[in-house]
């Protein structure tokens, strides 16, 4: 069951890392859900068209980033409302993926995707009793996720770029006065977020299932937003938070088998209920000061 949790937690992890960077730079992405959905569809369709899982994955990443570029153009350049843009992106992605998916069906595109990435056991580590198989018999994307925790942590806290990102999210005006362009920093951060969410979306159609279904991300992008807050905008805490949420989901699936007398809808609503409860309990976290506020360059 822990293995299932790690599996279910991987897309949350990937997207939450990206969203943490974006929010640290001051941009809120309600559209993460949409990036993920578009990424899932892009990866499914891309893999089918090119006949290669890796290029499918790449197309998933590009699909997510494309939407993130739109979000940046509207919110960072034009200074429009980030939440409205995020809602628009979600509705748009839902519509676009369903529309194109159904169009492809009528043109005879197969329902099933190309296939999935194989699970790879890492020698030695996967022999650790109990924990080994759960954490080290996963797909390549999960291992990538592990590595990215440390990469994002290091970039955010140990590099000049990370310092600029944090500065842009706290006080873009002061950042600008020190000769750093907060607009550019925000663009890079949001595009990275889109790429990560697109990768997370690819996980759904290239690892989890070898198929696409309409609205398949089912609000996980919103849970990601909750995870970012719960982990206090800190990449190192994100994996733990993701595991908690994924564990609840895995628990729900497991309980269905052992307690069939409890109707399954109540199990499946658990992750959402838990998100609300955890957000209510952990309310002392302080967000980046300029999160959600557009920045207009002087002159």
């Amino acid at each position, binding site marked *: 069951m822990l293995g299932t949790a790690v599996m279910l937690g991987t897309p949350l992890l990937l997207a939450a890392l990206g969203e943490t960077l974006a929010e640290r730079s001051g941009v809120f992405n309600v559209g993460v859900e949409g990036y993920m959905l578009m990424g899932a569809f892009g990866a499914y369709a891309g893999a089918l068209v090119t006949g290669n899982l890796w290029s499918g994955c790449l197309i998933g990443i590009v699909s997510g980033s494309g939407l993130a570029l739109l979000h940046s153009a509207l919110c960072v350049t034009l200074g429009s409302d980030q*939440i409205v843009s995020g809602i628009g992106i979600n509705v748009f992605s839902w519509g*676009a993926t369903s529309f*194109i998916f159904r169009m492809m069906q*009528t043109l005879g595109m197969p329902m099933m995707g190309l296939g999935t990435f194989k699970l790879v056991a890492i020698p030695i580590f996967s022999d650790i009793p109990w924990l080994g198989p759960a954490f080290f018999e996963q797909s390549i994307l999960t291992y990538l996720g592990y590595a990215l925790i440390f990469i994002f942590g290091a970039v955010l806290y140990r590099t000049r770029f990370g310092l600029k990102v944090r500065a842009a999210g706290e006080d873009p005006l002061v950042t600008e006065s020190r000769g750093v362009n907060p607009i550019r920093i925000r663009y890079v951060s949001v595009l990275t977020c889109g790429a990560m969410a697109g990768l997370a979306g690819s996980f759904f159609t290239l690892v989890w299932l070898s198929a696409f279904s309409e609205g398949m991300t089912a609000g996980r992008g919103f849970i990601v937003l909750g995870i970012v807050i719960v982990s206090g905008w800190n990449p190192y805490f994100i994996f733990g938070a993701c595991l908690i949420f994924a564990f609840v989901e895995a628990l729900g699936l497991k309980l269905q088998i052992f307690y069939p007398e409890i109707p399954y809808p109540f199990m499946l609503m658990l992750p959402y209920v838990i998100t*609300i409860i955890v957000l209510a309990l952990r*309310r002392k976290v302080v967000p980046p000061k300029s999160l959600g506020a557009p920045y207009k360059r002087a002159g």
Partner: protein
Amino acid sequence: MYTAILAVLLGFVIAAIFLEASGLNAFDAYSAMFLGAFSTPYRTAETLIRASPFMLGALGFALAFKAGYWNIGVDGQLVIGTIAALWGGITFTYLPSILLIPLIYLLGFLGAGAWSLISGFLKAKFHVNEILTTLMMNYVAYWVVHYLVYFPWKDPEVFLHQTIPIASSANLPILAAGTRLHAGVLVGLGSAFIIYIFLKRTRLGYSIRAVGFGPDGARYGGVNVSRTVMIASFLSGAIVGVGGVGEVLGAYHLIIENLTYNFGFIGIAAAMLALNNPLGIILSSTFFGFLITGSLYMTRGAALTIGAVQLFVGIMILATLVSPLIAKIRKKKTGPVDRQ
């Protein structure tokens, strides 16, 4: 107004690109859509029926938005409204219509209001981000209605997953013979005017707008901010719930699982297109009603429509953002503050 017109035009243009790209003639599609929505009295009535839940969803969203509260849980609150309506319609069947229908409306109002108040309470008392909690509540509502449709209320005589129908005494009267135009449409219209006056002319409406302009200023002016936020969240959900009631009593008389799914987001889009003006919402939601009804007649039947309409609605929400310059010329209308 300029923003809305620009957004609609941009929406049509971008959607046309999508249509052309998928091998359809956009001009034919649009004319079929217009004829589909308005060519006969029946179809015009369908457009108005479709618009009704969007209108109430948009009004609910707008009311909370005036208080600086983002109610993105409209979709779930519509679901709760339908649940309350169905429960009332199968439980109090001994009452005459004249009592039963108002009672069911009250149930939907209170039920969805209470549902929405959960997020409002967490926001007001614990500063929990309402954007996230209202979104999460949507998914909880979807699973609740799924449970009811598949288990306790499932109609055993029908193969499809749908609930038993409400008592016929709970059905709303039909306004025009030969159509499905039901009295719930008038409830939507009436609510728009009531909310317009409520926000402009009452003390509570004034407090709500004061909180939206800035909680600190409102507090200084003697407004109880956290109480106002909770009232706004309750009323917002309650108005949306009324829309859900109309769908069951007026349009369907039973629930299938995805009866109103995504209607809430279309409602939010309608509110944004109208810049949260209750009277503007009448127009914008009728426009979205036209979009949905018309698209049924557009091309290649229903298989493509739901996605295509969502696509269109999404583009339109985004298009309202492209014209911030025009919007800024009109004076500062909305100032949502205190986001976290």
